Each structure stands twice: as C-alpha cells, then as structure tokens.
C-alpha cells in the first residue's frame, strides 16, 4: 500500500493535469466556435468527452478486492474524500434546480441553502468520526452490530433503499433531460445513454472507481457552475466575484421590483389574469354544461374559419384546441383548476426577492416562518442521515482523516451553495432590467429557441406588443441553463453548464446505486441469507444487483413520472426520521437497546409516511388536515423527535444491552488506537 503523503501528492498531480486538460478543451471549443463549429457539435463533444473520461477512470480502477470494492481500500485522503462527497451530495437538483428555485422564491428558497450545508455540522459532530472508527461497510452494518441482530438491519435496509431509489430515479431523469436537450436525441434513449455512463463508473470498480470519478466530476461541475456567473457578475458590476458583490445588485433589484410592481401596464395585465381566473372558476362550477358549450363554440369557430378561407395555420391551431379539449368532466375539472391556479398566481405581484416570510397577513407570515424553520431542520437532519453520504466516511484512512474530510466536504459544497443565491439575483436582474418592457417582436433569440422546447412561454395577454413581467414564464429548471444565453455568452458556456449538470447527476447516481446494491448484496444476502458466501460470490452478487437496480431505475425514469421530483424532497424526511435518532443514540447513549431502536425507527418512519399520505394531494390528502400548517415536504419534523422519544422510552422499559454491545460503544467513541497509547499500555 502506498503511504498516504505519497499517494496524496500523486493524486494531486493527476487531478491538476486533468483539470488543466479540461480547461484546454473548453478553450479549444471556444476557439472552434468562433471558427464556425455548430452548437450541436459543441454539445456532443462536451458530453461524450466527459463521459469518456469517467469511463476511462472507471475501467482503470476496476477491482475484485472486497475492501476496495466496498470502501475504496480505506485510503482516500481527506481532501479527495471531501471532493468526492461533495460530488456525491450535489445532485441534478442542486446543480440545475436550486438557482431556479431561488429565482422564484427568493428568501423562502434559502432554507435549502442553509439546510443542505448545516447538515454537515451534524455529520461532523455526531456521526462521521464514530462510523469511521466502527469501520465496516454499510450503515445497516452499524445498526445490526449496535442493536444486535437482523431486525434493526432490515429496517435500515428498507428505509435506505426506499430513500435512495427515489433519489436515483430523479438523477437518471435529470441525465435524460440534459442529454436529450444538448445532443438532440430522444428522452428515452438519453436515459439509457446516461445509464451507460453511470454503469461504466461503478460496475467494474465499485467504491474505488466511484470515488475517483466523483473527484473528476466535482472539478467539472464546480468549474461549470462558477464560470458563467463570474462572467455575468463582471458584466454587471465589474467584479468577477459574484458571491461578494451581489448584495448591491440585490439592493438595485429591490428598487427595480417596486418600480415594476407599481407600473400601470403591469397592473392591467395582472387584472386580466384575475378575470381569467374568475372565468375558469365559473366554468368549473358549471360543469358539465360548460364543457359542452366550450366544445360547441370551438366547433363553430373551426367551421367559421374554414368558410372564411382563413390561413391554414390558423385553422390547424383551432383544430388542435378542439382536439385538446378535455374529454370528461373530471378531466376538465383538473385541467381548468390547474389553469385557474396559474392565472391566479399571475394576478398578484411576486413577493420582493429579499422579503423574509412573505404572506398576506400575520397568520400567513407566521405559517411561512414555521415552514421555513421546519424545512431547514428536516434538510439538515436528512443530510446527516442519507446512507450514500455517511458511507463515504468509511473510506478514509483514519478517524482524524474522517473528521477533516467532513470539513473539506462542507468547504467544497459551500462553494456551490454560496454561489446559487447570487445566480438567482443576477438572473433576475438581467431579466427585469433588460427583458421586461421590451418589444415582443424583437426579443433575443434564446426566447424563441427555448420556447420551442416549452421551457419559456410568453403570452401577450393585453395585446400591447410589450413584454410585461406577468406575461413571461421561464421553467424553473431552465433558469440555470438559460443564464449563459441571457448574458449573451458564447454557446460553449452553455455546453460547459450542461457538462456540469451531467457530472452532478452522474456522480450522485453512482453513489446511490452503490448504496442500494451494497444494502441488498452485503446486508441482505451476505449477512443474513448466506454468511458462508465466498468473496468472489459476494462480488458477483453485488455487481449483478447493481445492474438490476440500475436498469429498473432507468426504466422508471423513462416513464417520466411527474411525481418523482416531489418524492426527492420526501427522501430527506424518510431518511431523517428512520436513521438519525437510532444512529445518534447508538453512539451517545449506551442504554439504547434493540427494542428501543427498532420501535423508534418504525415509529419515526411510520408517522412520517402517515403525514405525507394525510397531507399530500398526490395521495389524496389535503393541507386542511395538516398539523401546525407544516407542508408535507417537512414531515420529518414530526418523525425525528418522535423517533428520539420512542427509542428512549422503550429502551428504559426493556433490559439494557449486553456488555459486548456496551464495549462496542466504548470502542467507537475512542479515537484511533495510537501507537503512543499502545506503548503506554505495554509499559504499564
């Protein structure tokens, strides 16, 4: 085994060369674009060359050693484990979605920024060093050893697989979106291209290969995230450090917002949307007659256009409207209700970007505040309980390195999260000051090109030929991808951002797939079904599980489930309420026993799932049944405390854990067995 400092230097050299190579590729493509290389080619070169790099790293790191396959041989230096964890952590949702969320929700979206970083404090203080000392392969391993036996392990496997599977489907979905948009292939094919990209990394080399590709992916995704907004910041303020200067732009934006919100034409547009919402409400109330009237009216219009000899395009459009009319009353009710909600949301001004806890009255503001705090809490605790993150701290050489590695993880994650709010503010500033109030006929080219894929919509509702704020819709996931074009940057920057998004989605998907396949093959098969299995057989099982899970996840993603994105939010609550109390008490409270842990995990998970079903419209629930007005996404706020209480109460009612378990807790609490400590002991 290479000694750590030498390995560290060698890795540093490799990745420096690699990063320089990537920058050269970007510059080369930028020059080629000036010489006339088409955008389609730029997108393809970016995506295929990065996937080829990941594949090369994956193949080079192939291994058939169990320790290498599960925990990368436990010699990943803190800095590199930090980068790998950061890539593992930052998913397509962080990379692509966060800037858009912040663009639309302003202050409210900051719960994600604080929540997704603050969780690492809990990882550092309560979990990572102790799990590293424990030093097995998976999180259910710890539950099984600490809480004696298979029951706790099975609950851990179930909750871990549930949270991770939902999450991995969302990543593959993200990969499909990016590949289909930037290399122009079908979404379903894009999903399987992405799947191939994921498998080449993880299949042959397990954790070892995933670690080294994740470091490579982190470098690409952070370059891709920082470059466009730095250029944009330089354009607007003259300083290319957006994180430091966006405060002033935010101030200017506040002034601009007030100006826009009091503009007469803007208010006229909002009033028209209010009328439209009222019309939809009337139509919904008059079902089914209103649907019949609608159909008759549209048929008449088509005939009228035909007899007048109107242009074919207009006739086709009218026919399409007729065809798209809802078929049944139920369908109409859903469709019109959605349209009514949409019009209604446009009929009021959005809250000012920096306003804390916006709401119409005191009660609404209080509810917004409680939800903000609850969401922050759930995201933090969920972060500290997601198995694919915790698993990474098994891979460092020592307890001290694990501790330091949490610092580096947080640092590398910090770089992206501290930039995301700046992204939102700069994008909003550009849109509000350069786009709103311009002539609709002379809008920049990107409006049309993104309009074609349905991600940007413009409706001149008051017919004045000028774009008002309420008339513009930009899909929240598209904000980040559009920013380079809003800023008028060359296409190579857009390609770079797409490569970054792909890196973010692939790295997270790799980590999650490993977690799932390890849970199934190591915890379920090796530990419970067949403990006599040979090393070789275990690896064969792991690899085949990985393949099966990956294909199933890709298949689910290719069905384009609408519900998947909201489920990702729920993954945090599920992981938080199932794992966090049992893990933390397992380390910090010797008295916690298996009865308490199993009951606590089941109670926490149960109340969380119950609350989701009770309040989320997807399961037929309603917010009218909510407790303290807490949104379903934050349901873990009930599950986590309940988990702690149940573990405490049941543990105290049942006998304490046996001595060997208490010895295990003592073992986990102590740092590395230092040579010095051993020597002292020998002298005595």
């Amino acid at each position: 085994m290479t000694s750590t400092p030498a390995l560290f230097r060698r890795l540093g050299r490799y990745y420096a060369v690699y990063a320089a190579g990537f920058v050269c590729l970007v510059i080369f493509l930028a020059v080629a674009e000036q010489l006339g290389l088409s955008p389609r080619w730029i997108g393809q070169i970016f995506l295929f060359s990065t996937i080829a790099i990941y594949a090369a790293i994956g193949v080079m790191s192939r291994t058939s050693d169990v320790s290498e396959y599960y925990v990368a041989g436990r010699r990943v230096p803190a800095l590199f484990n930090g980068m790998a964890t950061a890539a593992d952590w930052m998913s397509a949702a962080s990379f692509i979605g966060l800037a858009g969320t912040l663009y639309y929700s302003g202050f409210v979206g900051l719960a994600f920024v604080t929540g997704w970083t603050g969780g690492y404090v809990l990882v550092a203080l309560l979990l990572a060093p102790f799990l590293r000392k424990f030093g097995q392969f998976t999180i259910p391993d710890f539950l099984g050893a600490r809480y004696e036996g298979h029951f706790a392990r099975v609950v851990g496997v179930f909750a871990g697989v549930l949270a991770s599977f939902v999450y991995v489907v969302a990543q593959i979905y993200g990969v499909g979106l990016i590949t289909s948009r930037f290399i122009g292939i079908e979404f379903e094919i894009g999903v399987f291209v992405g799947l191939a990209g994921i498998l080449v990394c993880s299949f042959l080399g397990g954790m070892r290969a995933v670690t080294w590709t994740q470091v490579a992916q982190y470098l690409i995704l952070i370059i891709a995230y920082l470059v466009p907004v730095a250029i944009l910041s330089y354009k607007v303020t003259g300083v290319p450090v957006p994180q430091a200067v966006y405060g002033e732009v935010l101030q200017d934006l506040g002034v601009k917002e007030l100006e826009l919100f009091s503009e007469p034409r803007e208010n006229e547009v909002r009033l028209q949307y209010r009328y439209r919402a009222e019309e939809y409400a009337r139509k919904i109330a008059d079902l089914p007659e209103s649907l019949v009237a609608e159909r008759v009216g549209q048929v008449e219009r088509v005939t009228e256009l035909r007899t007048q000899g109107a242009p074919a395009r207009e006739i086709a459009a009218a026919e399409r409207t007729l065809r798209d009319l809802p078929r049944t009353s139920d369908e109409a009710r859903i469709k019109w209700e959605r349209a009514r909600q949409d019009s209604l949301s446009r009929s009021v001004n959005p809250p000012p970007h920096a306003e804390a806890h916006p709401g119409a009255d005191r009660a609404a503001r209080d509810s917004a505040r409680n939800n903000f705090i609850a969401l922050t809490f759930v995201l933090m605790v969920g972060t500290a309980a997601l198995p694919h993150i915790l698993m990474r701290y098994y891979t460092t050489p020592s307890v001290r390195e694990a501790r330091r590695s949490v610092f580096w993880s947080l640092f590398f994650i910090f770089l992206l999260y501290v930039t995301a709010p700046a992204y939102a503010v700069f994008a909003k500033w550009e849109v509000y000051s350069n786009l709103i109030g311009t002539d609709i006929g002379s809008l920049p080219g990107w409006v049309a090109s993104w309009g074609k894929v349905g991600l940007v919509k413009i409706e001149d509702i008051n017919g004045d030929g000028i774009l008002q704020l309420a008339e513009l819709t930009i899909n929240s996931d598209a904000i980040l991808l559009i920013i380079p074009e809003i800023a008028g940057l060359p296409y190579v920057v857009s390609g770079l951002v797409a490569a970054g998004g792909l890196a973010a989605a692939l790295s997270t998907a790799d980590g999650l797939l490993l977690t799932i396949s390890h849970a199934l093959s190591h915890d379920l098969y090796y530990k419970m079904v067949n403990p006599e299995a040979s090393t070789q057989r275990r690896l064969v099982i792991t690899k085949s599980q990985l393949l099966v899970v990956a294909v199933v996840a890709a298949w689910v993603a290719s069905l384009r489930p609408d519900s998947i994105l909201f489920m990702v939010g729920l993954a945090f609550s599920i992981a938080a309420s199932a794992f966090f109390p049992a893990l933390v008490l397992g380390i910090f409270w010797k008295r916690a026993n298996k009865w308490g842990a199993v009951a606590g995990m089941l109670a926490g998970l149960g109340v969380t799932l119950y609350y989701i079903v009770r309040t989320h419209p997807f399961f037929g629930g309603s917010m009218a049944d909510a407790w303290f007005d807490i949104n379903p996404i934050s349901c873990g706020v009930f599950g986590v405390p309940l988990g702690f209480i149940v573990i405490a109460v049941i543990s105290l009612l049942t006998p304490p854990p046996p001595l060997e378990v208490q010895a295990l807790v003592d073992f986990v609490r102590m740092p590395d067995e230092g040579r010095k400590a051993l020597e002292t002991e020998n002298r005595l």
Partner: protein
Amino acid sequence: MSDIRARQRAYWRATLRLTSILLLAWAAASFLPGWFAEDLNAYSFHGWPLGFYMAAQGALIIFLLIVWIYDQWMTRLERRYGLHDED
C-alpha cells in the same frame, strides 16, 4: 491499565462538552436568523438585508468554522489525553 481507562473517560467527557457547545452554536446559527429574519432585514450588510445575508452566507460561514474548530480541538484533546497517534 486503570490510568488509560481514566484518561479515556476524561477524553470522552471533554468531547461531550465540546460537542454540546458546538451544537448550541450550530442551532443558533441555523434557526435564530430564520426566526428573526423580518427584524434582521431592517439592517443592511454590504447591500444585503441582514436576514437574507445570514441565511444565504453568514450561517454557512459559521458552519464551516464550527467543523474546522471541532477538528482542531479534537486533535488537541487526543494529544492532551495521550490518545494521539504521532506520525
């Protein structure tokens, strides 16, 4: 033998003390600015309303500091109680 036991117990007590102090700091940085955001927004910090700044940047910097202090302090504790691996 009893000497190392005593040192380990003292080390764990010191760890618990440090952990609780840092957890308090974490909770304060995480939830107080969010709870009082409306009041904090009345003040301005380099152009940011203070409540917005704390949630977008201030709390994150505090989190980094907490994790850094924890690492440094734990290394010192290990050394003080003779549980440190000299390399």
